[in-house]
């Protein structure tokens, strides 16, 4: 089962670092798994933790949040706020029984195309390990 299972993942990435890093991975022709739908936002500080819940509800098997390294935020401090938020969101998800392998956060700078590949591989592999997300997916319950 886990071999055929191709997870559906959502990545919220910041415009200035990770998105550029992913772009670099592309222009450098680095191969990485295609299971990720990237959603570009201006800053990780703009990512409402409810996005993660909503993605899981709407059928994502895992979520990745990625932005600039601490100190490198284009808006000076957005990623510091995001770090606090997602530290807690991760704890909360794990506490109610959602596998921690379904949620990841990373710092990928504009020059780290190779790191982006690694991050995506980890995220995809771990999502494959835990299988499809069913706990509170909307999945047309009682339609």
């Amino acid at each position, binding site marked *: 089962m886990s071999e055929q299972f191709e997870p559906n993942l959502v990545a919220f990435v910041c415009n200035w670092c990770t998105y550029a890093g992913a772009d670099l991975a592309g222009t450098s022709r680095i191969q990485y798994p295609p299971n990720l739908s990237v959603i570009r936002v201006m800053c990780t500080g703009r990512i409402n933790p409810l996005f993660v819940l909503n993605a899981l509800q*709407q059928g994502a098997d895992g979520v990745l949040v990625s932005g600039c390294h601490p100190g490198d935020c284009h808006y000076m401090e957005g990623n510091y706020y995001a770090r606090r938020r997602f530290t807690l969101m991760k704890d909360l998800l794990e506490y109610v029984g959602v596998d921690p392998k379904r949620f990841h956060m990373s710092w990928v700078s504009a020059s780290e195309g190779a790191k982006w590949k690694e991050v995506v591989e980890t995220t995809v592999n771990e999502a494959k390990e835990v299988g499809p997300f069913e706990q509170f997916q*909307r999945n*047309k319950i*009682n*339609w």
Partner: protein
Amino acid sequence: MDNMKLAKEKVGDFLAKLGKERFRVPQETGGSSRFAPLNGESSVDFTLSNTTVPLKSLFYPQTETLYRYEVGETAMKAPGEADEMIIMGVRPCDAKALTIVDRLFSWDPKDPYYLGRREKATIIGLACQEPRVNCFCTSLGGGPASTEGLDILMTDLGESFLFQPLTEKGEKICQEAGDVLVKSEDSDVQAAEKVHKDAASKIVRKIDSEGIPEKLPQLWDSQIWKKTSEPCLGCGACTFLCPTCHCFDIQDEIEGLEGRRYRVWDSCMFKEYTLHTSGHNPRPTRRERTRNRINHKYSYFVDKFGVIACVGCGRCINLCPVNVDILNILSQVKEAL
């Protein structure tokens, strides 16, 4: 048809004979109780007191799909037909509440979802033996052994249950059960009557509802509403768990190219219940909302359907976290003027 008797050790046989999948019985999930399908077990715990979530949730579920649609299709898909249900262990107040809600859903236009389920359901009531402190059913024409809305009245006689069939549906169930049920003696009926009487005498809280429907419209600007609504939190506990409250909201849910229109319980105690698109809210504070809740039950519904939309089950009193007590409000209404 004659009265019948079901020995307690034969409850399992009774369920099996009629088909377990048809039964809905009181069950505890999480920290509350409600009517739900039998899950694997062969018996039912009839000692549970009145369920937290009232019987209405079986006929008028909190979320109900009205129809589904798909992009490209012109036809809408209506949900399938209702299942046949035998609901066992219903308290008389909940059954009486259904007869009240019936009037609304069979008004113009008739509601096919609710009425479809009603038609296919048989309700076996269980006479109350231990009314709670806040029960006041006897004040509103009901009682611990009221038969209104029931198909069979069941009374706990210690070793067995007395079955008193009240309608054709009820008789049919008794016939289907066959020899699981035995004929009852006259002494059983007398014993049951004693049980009913004892229970009724245990109901302490009372309200004389005489005159309240006429009086309420005159108290529109009364101080009562301000005073009694001050502690109110504006939550929906009283209305969602009321067996006669029936307001709903209609929403759409769209997933990709498919969608559904459904209705969900709504509560007049919520701010957004009367909120207009313009931002204007004709019931801007909890004072107006509390006034509406009482008026709807004791005045508007009476005007429209000739009956008070309250059965005295006491849930709103038990479950209100800030002690907004409908009996207290009503007695203030009685005293006013």
